[in-house]
């Protein structure tokens, strides 16, 4: 097997990596070797200097540039006074190298210790890495760019990492304590008495009162778009005032690798004046689709190509969905240029049907009722293959069983050309209603239905069985669960090696959850037929359902969790275990990793590119 590895002295390597976000390095030097150090360092946030855990002294850490087919060797040293870990998000690798403490025998990296991760790179695209310990991933993170072995299908003259982030000057553990003491601790957008009188004037006293009573009956809050505020929003570690700038020349194609590396923030990303051509989702090539805007869940990645026909400057604008703030960067012909900052949009209000109102007004709290509802719904899509929903917004029509809400129903991230409440009018900014609202009229927002894998995944069998995963929680206690169980309370999901399973994510809460599976891609059932896109993280909107299929090709115990940091930390995680093949072939997995994975991790030959890549 041919391997090219160029060893570069570390300082050079570090500066190269640091510069990775700023300069294009399409086919420059690649090094499969990296040394990362996790340690406390001073970080400035909103003018305050605070200590945060960092990678190599900065937030984010260096961009890791790897190449498909080579072997990565990454040593992570822990110089902090608490345990840490590093997880390679979206990377196919042996379980022991995945970096999730407690899984596959990996027990984290103790203070003063280091851990060397080695794995063969059998994929390409945009990924990221982050700590999987406690609440550290809020500052211990960085981008991963893997160059394909073959020339990329969508060439570009420039190539930039756009790593979106959020960071709070608070201690990230204290944030969870505050949420447990008062789940509304950070919500300064509650509906007030003043709002009530405003609504009463507009809608009439009876309607306004009825609305308050409806929410009150459920003991839920329609302003609950985000759990935590006080974040500074970042692009490659830079706040809006620092204006991260990407240089381009008119007519050049520029590839932007958008990564939502935030802890708790979903972003609406756009570049006013430019169309974004989406060419990859979660590291995997898709048929190009031109959009104006992308709603990005935590941990999702989209590679987009822009081809400005003007000189710019253009603003890359990423607004948090609760409209608490924005991250921005600039595409410009030279440093120092600034594009216009778009007018801020009003915060959306959740609608009754964002709550899974199908559940008889109990919104996911009345679990028995919810089960009955979904029991019926599930049967409907027994043997569906792609279950053609091309025409409409929802991934799962049958779970939307509240027909009376047409005005703002069913448009999970699709084109918003119809929603009167959603338009952006500077004179009278109507409050958008519904989780997936608030986009400008007529703009093309990327929908999951738009994603079509460029190459069809090899395995097109219908799934052998379906696994229902209800996304549940109790906002009153700030407890987030899967199938009503916190991590550690439920037995792992177990599947056989080679088994093809569907996972139905049924969101019974009022918040969107970006659900992430380690170790494998899943195929999103979005109506794309055999071209189901591969993703490792999917947003499940409030009150909606999303289903995915996967073939269990990677042996091991893989975390399956919500990627909102405090949802995971408060219990929204489980283990997805792929049992090893039966005795006949026992000992060797398709990775070449020998069993049991908990003990050994060497001997995996260079087995690149299987498994749906």
């Amino acid at each position, binding site marked *: 097997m041919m391997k090219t590895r160029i060893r570069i002295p570390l300082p050079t390597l570090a500066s190269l990596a640091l510069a990775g976000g700023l300069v294009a390095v399409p086919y420059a030097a690649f090094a499969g070797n990296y040394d990362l150090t996790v340690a406390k360092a001073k970080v400035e946030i909103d003018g305050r200097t605070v200590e945060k855990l960092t990678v190599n002294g900065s937030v984010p850490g260096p961009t890791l540039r790897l190449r498909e087919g080579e072997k990565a060797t990454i040593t992570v040293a822990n110089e902090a006074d608490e345990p840490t870990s590093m997880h390679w998000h979206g990377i196919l690798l042996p379980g022991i190298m995945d970096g999730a403490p407690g*899984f596959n025998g990996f027990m984290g990296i103790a203070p003063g210790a280091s851990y060397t991760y080695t794995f063969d790179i059998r994929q390409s695209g945009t990924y990221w890495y982050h700590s999987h310990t*406690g609440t550290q991933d809020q500052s211990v993170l960085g981008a991963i760019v893997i160059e394909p072995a073959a020339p990329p299908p969508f060439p570009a003259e420039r190539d930039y990492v756009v790593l979106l982030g959020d960071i709070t000057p608070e201690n990230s553990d204290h944030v*969870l304590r505050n949420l447990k003491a008062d789940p509304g601790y950070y919500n300064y957008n509650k509906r007030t008495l003043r709002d009530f009188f405003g609504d009463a004037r507009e809608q009439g006293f009876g309607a306004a009162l009825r609305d308050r009573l409806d929410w009150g009956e459920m003991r839920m809050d329609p302003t609950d778009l985000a759990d935590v505020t006080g974040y500074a929003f970042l692009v490659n570690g830079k706040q809006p005032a620092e204006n991260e700038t990407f240089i381009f020349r008119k007519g050049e194609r520029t590839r932007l690798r958008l990564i939502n590396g935030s802890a708790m923030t979903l972003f609406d990303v756009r570049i006013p004046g430019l169309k974004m051509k989406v060419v990859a989702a979660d590291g995997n090539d898709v048929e190009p689709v031109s959009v104006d805007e992308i709603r990005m869940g935590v941990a999702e990645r989209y590679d987009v190509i822009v081809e400005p026909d003007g000189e710019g400057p253009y603003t890359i604008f990423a607004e948090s969905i609760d409209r608490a703030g924005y991250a921005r960067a600039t595409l410009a012909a030279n440093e120092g240029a600034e594009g216009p900052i778009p007018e801020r949009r009003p915060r959306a209000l959740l609608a009754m049907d964002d709550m899974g109102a199908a559940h008889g007004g109990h919104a996911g709290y009345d679990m028995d009722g919810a089960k009955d509802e979904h029991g019926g719904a599930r049967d409907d899509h027994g043997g569906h293959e792609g279950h053609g929903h091309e025409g409409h917004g929802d991934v799962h029509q049958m779970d939307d069983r509240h027909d009376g809400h047409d005005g703002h129903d069913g448009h999970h991230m699709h084109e918003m050309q119809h929603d009167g409440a959603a338009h952006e009018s500077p004179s009278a900014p109507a409050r958008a209603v519904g989780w997936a609202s608030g986009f400008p009229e007529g703009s093309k927002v990327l929908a999951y239905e738009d994603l079509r894998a460029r190459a069809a995944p090899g395995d097109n069998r219908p799934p052998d069985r379906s696994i229902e995963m209800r996304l549940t929680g109790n906002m009153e206690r700030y407890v987030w669960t899967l199938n009503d169980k916190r991590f550690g309370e439920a037995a792992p999901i177990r599947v056989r090696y080679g088994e093809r399973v569907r996972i139905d994510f049924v969101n019974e809460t009022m918040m969107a959850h970006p659900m992430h599976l380690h170790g494998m891609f899943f195929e999103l059932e979005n109506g794309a037929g055999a071209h189901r896109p591969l993703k490792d993280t999917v947003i499940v909107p409030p009150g909606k359902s999303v289903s995915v299929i996967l073939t269990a090709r990677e042996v091991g115990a893989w975390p399956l969790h919500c990627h909102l940091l405090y949802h*995971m930390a408060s219990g929204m995680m489980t283990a997805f275990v792929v049992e090893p093949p039966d005795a006949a072939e026992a000992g060797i997995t398709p990775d070449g990793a020998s069993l*049991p994975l908990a003990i050994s991790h060497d001997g995996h030959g260079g087995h690149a590119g299987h498994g749906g890549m």
Partner: protein
Amino acid sequence: MRKMLLAALLGSFAFPGTGRAEPGDVVAMDHGAEIFRRIVVEADYAARDGGQWRWHVDGWIGGDSERVWIRSEGKIEDGRAEEAELQLLYGWNVHPFWDVLLGVRQDFEPRGETYLAAGVTGLAPYFFETDATAFLSTEGDLSLRLEQSLDIPVTQKLIAEPHVELNAFAQDVPERGIGAGFSGVAAGLQLRYEITRRFAPYADLVWERALGETASIARGRGEDVEVTTLRFGVRAMF
């Protein structure tokens, strides 16, 4: 389950059904703390009876499903403690919005008395914070206390909180001047300004009235059966 979680925290736990280390083993570790708390303390002052101080503590320490509750309230008039009580309870979460509590209450003033305490606490529909607690004294006297309150944000930081407390007794308690039946009601409106979520000054207008037989006893003694008090204080959450 709680013990298993505890074991998981200690890192010595594998999922049930696996006797030894196997590839599918998962150890629940490093995914966040388990012990949290919320203790709200209010202390206020009213310019009556030579200066009246009052305190009120309500809170819990624990996890998502089991918590230790601590409650205390009392009154100091003219430099002297008139009322003082402390409750320690253990609570189990039995419903998304409700906990069942069991514990003891100790009165120090006006006279020492020990009670068994049992009740529920939680959030009723329409966001009513609700506590209902029954007390059985060592003398065999049974009483009930019902408290409800509602937070209404006037603005994001100015909160209006109407609150009501109702007390009832199953029998006469002559030594405390109480007759069987509803004995008293207190209703008020607190207006507080949350400088932070953890610290808020407030004003509280409270109307209290003795009821039924208890009111008759008070009248017979020449005491007021109805008082209205304006209090000023601070509220802190720890």
